[in-house]
């Protein structure tokens, strides 16, 4: 059974979002998503400073099995990316909600965060897809 922390928000395309104290949001892919992909071998993160719109592909995770786009769950500026993933993509598999985070966005519209799913809704969606 995959792990779905209660304190995060989730997108339909299997990204998670954590609201940080400074108002920025950290984004990664869920435990369920990493398990489906299998061992990651490459992660491409966006350039800090780029503007992302909600639903836009802005990172790529590539596993032994397939390449998959990661979408911005909310609109805003990319303010940080996880540089450690370039040499250690397995962090996403080992710690999808911790060391395996992908990038941080400074949201331009916090209403987009509220519109995301909570843990219960996301778990129900995963259940219905399986």
């Amino acid at each position: 059974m995959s792990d779905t922390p209660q304190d995060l928000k989730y997108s339909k395309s299997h990204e998670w979002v954590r609201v940080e104290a400074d108002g920025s949001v950290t984004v990664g892919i869920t435990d369920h998503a990493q398990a489906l992909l299998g061992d990651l071998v490459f992660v491409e993160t966006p350039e800090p400073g780029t503007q992302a719109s909600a639903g836009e592909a802005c990172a790529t995770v590539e596993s032994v099995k397939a390449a998959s786009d990661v979408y911005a769950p909310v609109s805003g500026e990319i303010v940080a990316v996880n540089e450690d993933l370039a040499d250690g993509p397995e962090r996403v598999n080992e710690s999808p909600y911790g060391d395996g985070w992908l990038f941080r966005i400074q949201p331009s519209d916090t209403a987009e965060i509220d519109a995301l799913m909570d843990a219960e809704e996301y778990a129900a969606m995963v259940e219905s897809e399986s």
Partner: protein
Amino acid sequence: MTLKTTPLHAAHQRAGARLVDFAGWEMPLHYGSQIDEHHAVRRAAGVFDVSHMQVVDIQGAQAQSFLRHLLANDVAKLKTPGRALYTCMLNTDGGVVDDLIVYYRGDEGYRMVVNAATAEGDVAHMRAVGESWDVAVKTHPELAMLAVQGPDAVAKVVPLLPDELRTAGELRPFHAVWGKDWMAARTGYTGEDGFEIMLPAERAESFWDGLLRAGVRPVGLGARDTLRLEAGMNLYGTDMDESTTPLVSNLGWTVAWEPLDRDFIGRTALEKQRAEGVPAQLVGLVLEGRGVLRGGTRIETPAGDGVVTSGSFSPTLGVSIALARIPAASDHSELIAQMRGRVMPVRRVKPPFVRHGKSLLDGTR
């Protein structure tokens, strides 16, 4: 449809396997990390459940002459009991029906191990061809099969074998020993030393448990695929099938043209293709940049386009590698891959990519 399971199904579940449908069998894809499993085989030892593969025995007065007709390689090369041979079985068009290993067992005839996905059709084909020969085609669903591969495989396996198979440790590659109902062969699909072991289904679980207790790591189909790809070994159904001949599949070396009067199925078609000019070749590719070559990726060469037949990430090399079928006229070493809207340079190499844990990409090969 209910998936078939092997005698080790419960053992896989205990080991935490992620199980998937493979050719109608519920088989382990990995037990956590397929990359870790891959490294375990290159550096120590891993065990694969390959009980979904089919064991077929050919016995009878005409067993040898039947197989000399059925198979593109020549079993007459197997002069002493225990020798084994890799071969294709062709249709009359020269297309590959399956690839297999055949073992010579002296008075007991020959044993073949064929792919799971093609097993049913293979056996039907053998029986149809065999009707005009004095042979019996017998399958062995009661046998399990394990492959134990890696530099430590021999040391881990030999103490667990029945006494009658203890000489397995001295076997040379492509040689086998057998007892009443076990058989051990120094063969595999990884480019490492090791064994393929056939044994009674009811003994499989205790043998498996013994291997795990000895520190051998369970390995799933995911790592099996990256290991065989690094070893430059074709996968039936992706790198070759009934529409491709051995000559366009880098398997010309498995076709025994001599003696000239041996009439094997597909010979006429292969001779015609050879005379008219073989149109394509299967080559190795390395992508030095970031990204992974996948089956279906288009490869551009100055002599025309080709396609990746199987591609993945090579855990040993840290880059993507592939087998690709390209025009025979292309002798260029630098080619172009069209990947997800990006154009990436790829380097052509001669497979294998890795052997006995070492990269073969650089140096004086």
